[in-house]
């Protein structure tokens, strides 16, 4: 039980004035998996960047093997045996796995890179730590999960004894998480230490030995994983009890509302992103779409929302064919859309909150008469929604771009729900949103459903889909490969095998489940 890495009294204020780390203490025992959890913006990444020498603390000290050490730069951290895998990878896409791993510390024969030796070394490393990857393949051809392995191998090749992983599971499918955890276990068995950053609690509980919890820049506690529960951790993270649970839809005679038939949509490169899709949504239900990123879900939502042309097939809302209607007409027919990217699509950052809210209602005589804006009505409406959705904002005239991610998302959700939609497209509704706001948004979605809306939901977070959806479909390479009623025995693992294309339901089974 020797401590390998310690942080004492770390304090960090960014030039902008954000006090991201306040007097942080952290002690990591050698050979363990130590998780740091906290909501978005709690300061986890900042602390890790300090431990890896990317950011410099304003105060405090770092000890490695009990001795104080100053980490001026990542180079110094690597030399001391600390490695880090960031949320965004820094690989050279056209280089092979082996080249990427050895880049900067290449084995040489004379002046030339010794390709063979590099490949062998990396191969051996991969086998030793259970990180299987094709070392000769260019990195750009690998799925994200394998690119992450390359990043880990890079750190191990540089003989990292402490490996920092910043939200490694955020980009992974369930099966890939299982594989990552296997690798982590093999690493700790061989004496390495893992510092694991996350905000998804079930997996933290599964993999960690000890868990430190951060909230709003402070370290609020440390517990042994064996003594913690999801609930206790959530309470520490948020500072109050959170109920991440919503009631399922009441069963009843729901009629069909949205009918998608033979839908074909192309992606930006002109290839079929969605092929001949049939799907029916009933009133008052949430249909979840599970898919690994890039399997057509983005294009599907864009096309249904009118942001991408529909190449073939039809979409009906309540008996009206909306296939070729403009976005405005689709919205008039009862469609609303919470898009996957609130900044690129869901808002105009430089415009005020009130202007962002009224943007979809410019045909409504409450706000516009004879082409003139009713400024007071627009502001009042915004003030009302800000209060109703407890958006933390200076007021309706603040630029929406100045809000934090969670509050911006609340504005988008508020706007889309305030139109009382009958059909709601929802993509990643709580990505980058903290636990408290997540709970709130989920409840609002469930309310909309109970009010009779048909909701099509997709999320990279399977637990979100499982918590909200009444039915689930799995999309793989633009096709529906499985459909389920969302019952208690539907697990991420079951979904995962369909999402990764390892399994597909038969035609009859699918048809029965989709009916």
């Amino acid at each position, binding site marked *: 039980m020797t401590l390998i890495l310690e942080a004492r009294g770390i304090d960090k204020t960014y030039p902008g004035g954000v006090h991201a780390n306040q007097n942080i203490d952290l002690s990591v025992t050698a050979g363990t998996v130590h998780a740091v959890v906290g909501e978005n913006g709690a300061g986890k990444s900042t602390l890790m960047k300090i431990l890896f020498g990317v950011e410099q603390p304003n105060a405090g000290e770092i000890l490695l093997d009990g001795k104080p050490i100053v980490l001026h730069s990542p180079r110094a951290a690597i030399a001391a045996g600390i490695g880090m895998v960031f949320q965004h990878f820094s690989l050279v896409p056209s280089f092979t796995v082996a080249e990427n791993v050895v880049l900067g510390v290449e084995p040489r024969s004379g002046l030339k890179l010794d390709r063979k030796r590099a490949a062998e070394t990396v191969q051996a490393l991969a086998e030793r730590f259970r990180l299987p990857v094709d070392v000769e393949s260019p990195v750009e051809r690998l799925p994200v999960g394998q690119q992450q392995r390359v990043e880990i191998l890079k750190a191990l090749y540089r003989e990292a004894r402490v490996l920092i992983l910043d939200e490694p599971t955020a980009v992974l499918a369930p099966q890939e998480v299982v594989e990552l955890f296997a690798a982590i276990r093999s690493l700790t068995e061989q004496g390495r230490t893992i510092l694991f950053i996350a905000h998804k609690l079930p997996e933290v509980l599964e993999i960690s030995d000890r868990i430190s919890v951060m909230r709003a820049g402070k370290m609020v506690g440390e517990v042994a994983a064996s003594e913690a529960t999801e609930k206790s951790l959530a309470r520490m993270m948020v500072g109050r009890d959170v109920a991440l649970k919503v009631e399922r839809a009441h069963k009843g005679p729901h009629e069909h509302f949205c009918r998608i038939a033979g839908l074909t949509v192309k992606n930006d490169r002109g290839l079929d992103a969605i092929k001949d899709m049939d799907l029916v949504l009933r009133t008052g239900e949430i249909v979840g779409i599970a898919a690994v990123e890039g399997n057509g879900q983005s294009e599907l939502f864009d096309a249904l929302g009118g942001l991408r042309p529909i190449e073939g097939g039809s979409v009906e809302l309540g008996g009206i064919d909306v296939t070729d209607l*403009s*976005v405005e007409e689709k919205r008039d027919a009862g469609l609303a859309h919470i898009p996957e990217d609130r900044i690129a699509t869901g808002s105009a*950052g430089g*415009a005020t909150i009130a202007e962002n809210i*009224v*943007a979809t209602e410019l045909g409504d005589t409450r706000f516009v008469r004879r082409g003139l804006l009713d400024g007071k009505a627009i502001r009042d409406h915004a003030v009302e929604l800000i209060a109703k959705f407890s958006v933390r904002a200076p007021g309706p005239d603040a630029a929406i771009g100045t809000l934090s991610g969670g509050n911006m998302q609340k504005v988008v959700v508020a706007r889309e729900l305030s139109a009382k939609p009958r059909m709601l497209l929802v993509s990643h509704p709580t990505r980058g949103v903290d636990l408290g706001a997540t709970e709130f948004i989920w409840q609002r979605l469930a309310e909309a459903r109970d009010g009779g809306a048909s909701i099509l939901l997709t999320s990279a977070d399977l637990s979100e889909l499982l918590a909200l959806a009444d039915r689930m479909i799995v999309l793989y390479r633009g096709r529906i490969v499985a459909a389920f009623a969302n019952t208690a025995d539907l697990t991420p693992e079951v979904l995962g095998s369909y999402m990764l294309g390892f399994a597909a339901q038969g035609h009859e089974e699918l048809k029965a489940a989709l009916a």
Partner: protein
Amino acid sequence: MTQGKLILSETGRMIFAAVIALAVALVIILLSSKTPLETFQTFLTGPLSSKRTVGTWIDDASKLALAGLAFSLVFQARQFALGVQGQVYIGGLLASTIALSPLGLSWISIPLGAIAAMLGGALLGFIPGYAKAKLNANEIVSSLMLNYIAYDFTAMMLRLYLASPKSGLTASDPFPPTAVYPAFIARTRMDLGLVLALVTVVVVWFLLYRTAWGLKLRLTGHNARFAAYSGIRSNFIMVSAMTVSGAIGGLLGALFVQGTGFAKLAAGFEAGLSFEGILIAIVARNRPLAIPFVALGYGYLRQGAALMGYRTDVPAEVIGIVQGIVILLVASSFTLPGRALLNRIMGGRSAAEAS
């Protein structure tokens, strides 16, 4: 940031740009003039030296403001149409045609001239917009090409039909007095143009901030994808923004030829002023209500430089350098590194402001 604070910080930024511009001008004058103090004094106080120079300053400022308004409208929609110059020529040509026709003998030629000029300018603004919407033609290229066409077309029409032999075919006969804007102060260029410019400021502000069209335009400019997602027909907005901007450009043309400054159609009458509207729009951050102030300030520097050119040994071209510096300073404050640099330069002052 509250509205008040925003106005304060923006005003501070403009004053800062002006101070830097003046400092640069001073350095150039010190380096090139034999009598630097007098020269600098001419530059600084020249525009106020007589009733006439004040009138010229105000008249220039009105024209700069109109050019700035025309650009700010398309810039707010994030379209980079640069066709104001062409619109000015076509507007000037049409207004001249009316002024030189029998209609010119009645005051009706003043509103008619303005309307004809605006229609012509609007058409010229519409073309690149439509070409972009339908053919995806780049509006920068098409609007610049239209500038050439409009310039040469105006020159050709002048030579063929409107020029008077007395002027060596470079200008028309003077308009009848009934077709010339009345001046408020005799023997100055302070005339109806000032009123038209101020009215246009208010109209553009109203369009942008009080109408649904203006909100759609600004939202399209902020984020075109968001506009599309919201159900705003951004193609319509884009084309109409360019058309309305074109009408303002055309009006500027009428202001030129029917104003007391010219009172005739002369070859190349606009002398590049239109493009200075870009500077006005950028410094005013496309805010219509800020535009008259920027136009006054910049018009003053411009007039001072011109007088310095007449009266001293330093050429008026100094204004070109000053202009470049101001553009660089203001434009760089749009970029993050530029902002960081500005903050550092302004560090002491803005810290004092905050406390």
